[in-house]
């Protein structure tokens, strides 16, 4: 078995916030590695530090101490502009609240990451991706004209257009009904498989977590367990 490439390495990560006189420790000494193509779910109760961890891993925030390395690049050494470039090249995002740009059409929203790279004529590629997400007839609709599920599918298309090395998903179905959630979950895993992307998923939904390769449980800002899914279930999910 060849050694898999490490996409994300987190080492001794601690995050504290000052709230008036009090210091609030949100994450404490968190360390783990994620390898290429791996699908990792972070689960834990509300306020356990899941989203903070995701933000730090994606270079959206800076830790109080510890180190995050993404594709071998130490994020702590980068300035904001360099972090932005790393996100653009290597990272895809899916958020609970979709975070589409309300003034852009679905197509334009999907095009943005590629356009930011300076790539021209990405309309066709974006339209194809939206087509795969079942939104071929909604290209020129604005987010406000799309349902929640459609908005999230658009967000997924946007997340995958730049062929990211890793996709960070924060409660991707948290705002959706059960039926739509299932559709989105399937789409995430489908696209993930098709693009060979590493997936880091923050969720409350244990059923969704069980579809991943590995579950990292977090409580009170600490990792309380880091276990691979049973190989049988793994193979079931992978198939």
């Amino acid at each position, binding site marked *: 078995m060849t050694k898999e490439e490490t996409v994300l390495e987190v080492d001794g990560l601690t995050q504290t916030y000052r709230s008036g006189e009090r210091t609030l420790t949100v994450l404490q000494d968190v360390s783990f590695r994620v390898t290429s193509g791996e699908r990792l779910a972070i689960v834990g109760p509300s306020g356990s530090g899941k989203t903070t961890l995701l933000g730090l891993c994606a270079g959206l925030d800076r830790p109080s101490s510890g180190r995050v390395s993404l594709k071998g690049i130490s994020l702590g050494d980068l300035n904001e502009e360099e972090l932005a470039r790393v996100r653009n090249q290597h990272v895809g995002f899916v958020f609970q609240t979709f975070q589409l740009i309300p*003034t852009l059409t679905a197509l334009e929203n999907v095009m943005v990451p590629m356009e930011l790279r300076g790539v021209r004529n990405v309309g066709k590629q974006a339209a194809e991706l939206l087509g795969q997400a079942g939104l071929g007839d909604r290209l020129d609709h604005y987010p406000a004209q799309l349902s929640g599920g459609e908005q999230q599918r658009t967000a997924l298309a946007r997340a995958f257009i730049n062929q990211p090395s890793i996709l960070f998903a924060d409660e991707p179905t948290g705002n959706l009904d059960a039926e739509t959630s299932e559709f989105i979950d399937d789409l995430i895993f489908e696209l993930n498989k098709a693009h060979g992307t590493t997936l880091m998923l923050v969720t409350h939904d244990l059923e969704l977590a069980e579809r991943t390769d590995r579950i990292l449980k977090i409580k009170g800002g600490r990792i309380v367990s880091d276990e691979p899914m049973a190989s049988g279930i793994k193979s079931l999910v992978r198939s």
Partner: protein
Amino acid sequence: MTIPPPAAKRIWNAWVWRMAWRESRSSRKRLLLFTSSIVLGVAALVAISSLRENLSRAIDQQARTLLGADLTIRSSSPFSNGAEALFTEIGGEKSRVTSLSSMAFFPRNGKLRLVQVRAAARGYPFYGELETQPEGVAIQLQSGQPVALVDAGLMRQFGLNLEEEIRIGEVAFRVIGSLLSVPGESLAFTIAAPRVFIPLGFMEQTGLIQVGSRVSYQIHFKLPETDVEQLVSDEEARLEEERLRVDTVERRKRSLGRAMANLYRFLNLVGFIALLLGGIGIASTIHLYIQQKLPTAAVLRCLGATSKQVLGIYAIQALAMGSIGTLTGCLIGLGVQMLLPQVLADFLPLEVEFAVSLSAIAKASLIGLGFALLFALLPLLPIRKASPLLVLRAAFESVRQQSDPWQWALKALIAAAILGFAITQTSRLWFGVWFFVGLATAFGLLCGVAHGISLAARRFLPRGWPFVWRQGLANLYRPNNQTLVLMTALGLGTFLLTTLYFVQGTLLSHAALTGLEDNPNLVLFDIQSDQIEKVRAILARYEIDTQMDVPMVSMRLASVAGQSVDELRSGPGRRGSRWALSREYRSSYREQLGEGEKLVSGEWTGRFSGLTEPVPISLEEGLARDLNVQVGDSLVFDIQGIEMECRIGSLRQVDWERVQPNFLALFPAGVLEDAPQFHVITGRTESASVSADLQLEVIEQFPNISAVDLSLVLSIVETILDKVSFVIQFMALFSILTGLVVLVGAVLTSRYQRMRETVLLRTLGASSRQIMTILVAEYFFLGMFATLTGLCLALAGSWALAHFVFESELNPQILPASGSILLIVGLTILIGIFNSRGTVRRPPLEVLRDEPGAF
């Protein structure tokens, strides 16, 4: 693995422009509204700059008609033989004009008016013409007949008709036309003393030229081939020696240019205030716009956009907004420019033709766009710091504030730009600095009060008030409140307008007050010594309370502290001002100091034997400063050919504001009694009709005597102030309208701020009425606080103006001002309600569905 290279090296790459365009889609209409914040400021600048260019072109084109001649020489005494010899040497075509102030009597209606009588000989004016109605009748002044051209305004005022009789002095003249304009003279010039032109040959017969008459003798030259400036420079010594005053086309152009530059500067500063108000509007608009765009900025940052790219997107939108505003402003400015010459018609001594001035447009556009961008950048800069983490934790991230050196640099740049503009506009460093300091203080105070009100509303929110009023008041301190922007926009507008109103009222009431109580309200002057007893008798018959009955003697200075005036005027170490050395002094003599006179140094001598010299006299302290003399110094006065040595015995402070003759040099009794003299009498009449009857009787018997009554002075002051305030109000209109646009913008923006709150309240069961009351309460508090602060600032500002500039007591008309304040508050509430009506009427869900990202 290395960090990927930047995809787009330039901030302003095509994607940024494309994003700016796409991103503005749903906001364009509203952005356009905010664009209008600067429209009026730019319009004012374009109009004023164009007017300036058109004016200077008009001055150049009509240069000769400004004077009506190539060279004009004036004297307050008849030209001497030496002067006449000089005129012969100068050569060219000549024309003489003699002018003086006198009473004109209109026999048909029995009315009198102090006018400026000008007796003109053939030829005048050489350039331009006396515009008359009917046209071309000015030539009849040379017909040898007793005819007169009467100022059009005077004809209207007294209902005079053509061919009617008008008496000036002892001659009855037939009115042949109304005078519309005289080359180089503005209409405002004629308010105090309307002009009446008569043939030169009749001046003598009027009998108006007597001892003490203030006559101006003028000779006009037509010298088309001569270098007049060189000529004047060559003859300077002789002109000085003969005490002749010279006016040339160049000098007139320069002085008119200076006067027009002052007018232009004033107008420009007023226009500039409109631009600044617009700037505040833009800054507040962009601030709220950016607040709403933060989530989008965070998403873009998440997707890999650099902070500069994000800034670029919104800076491009601001640039576009500024450009559209500037362009519209230019177009409106061109329209206004056609109006300005009409607004200023009374103050412009020449015809101004409308022409589009590209340089004026370019300059105003540059200033307008520059200020728009500077003010827009101020709230734009923080978007660079928009954290991508906002997509995960909006509530936490949005309150994280960081100090940004670029913000401070930008603020300094804005301050420097305003200061720079103020200095260049006023051309005087300190004037510009004071304008800036005044403006900064007003802004600072308004901002301070706005913060204070926010804090106070938070701290002392009355718990016992009904919910809706508490809610309205609480909106003053809630996040994204409108307190600061409305306080500054409304407060500054109120401040400017109310100051204007207070100062105007103070000046008028000051003039009116001088007529109250026991102050004299009638002045008779130019009374000859042989007429004085009869005049006193008439006054006694009318039971007039005579308050001053003073003799006056005309004299000139011959030497100061041992040096002759000629030496002093031409010497290298010149002493004293030219005005103080050359002027004709009208001095009086008496035993006691009068009311309004206070001895400040030396000793007053009330009576002195006329047999010995030097005579101890008292000088007004300002004149002593001008002449650079003090108590004990000697002065020699030339009293109509006889020199008298005097010694400065004392210095006096004189209250010049009293309606009474005041004197620069006061002699003791016993010295000047035999000198040729004339008299001035001031008195108090109980009614206007008594005053009119009395004047009529005096003038009928002694046509050379002139009378001024206070009602005339008041009406002159009022007319002038009316004309000036019309111009100021016209310009202030730009500020008010800009204030209103900013208000509409601010209210509209706050509507989006309050949208979710309103919808939530509606969801929870609030009635439309309750929602409306909350809005009314918020805008009532904002409008009230802003206008009250503006009013307080105006009181302070107009007190300072009254005290330091006009040296008078502030007499603010608070009640009418309160009326206009209520109007502004009402308007604020109305605009607030009008802009919010949609939110209240529609179902909550419909509003919510429409609004996300609508801004």
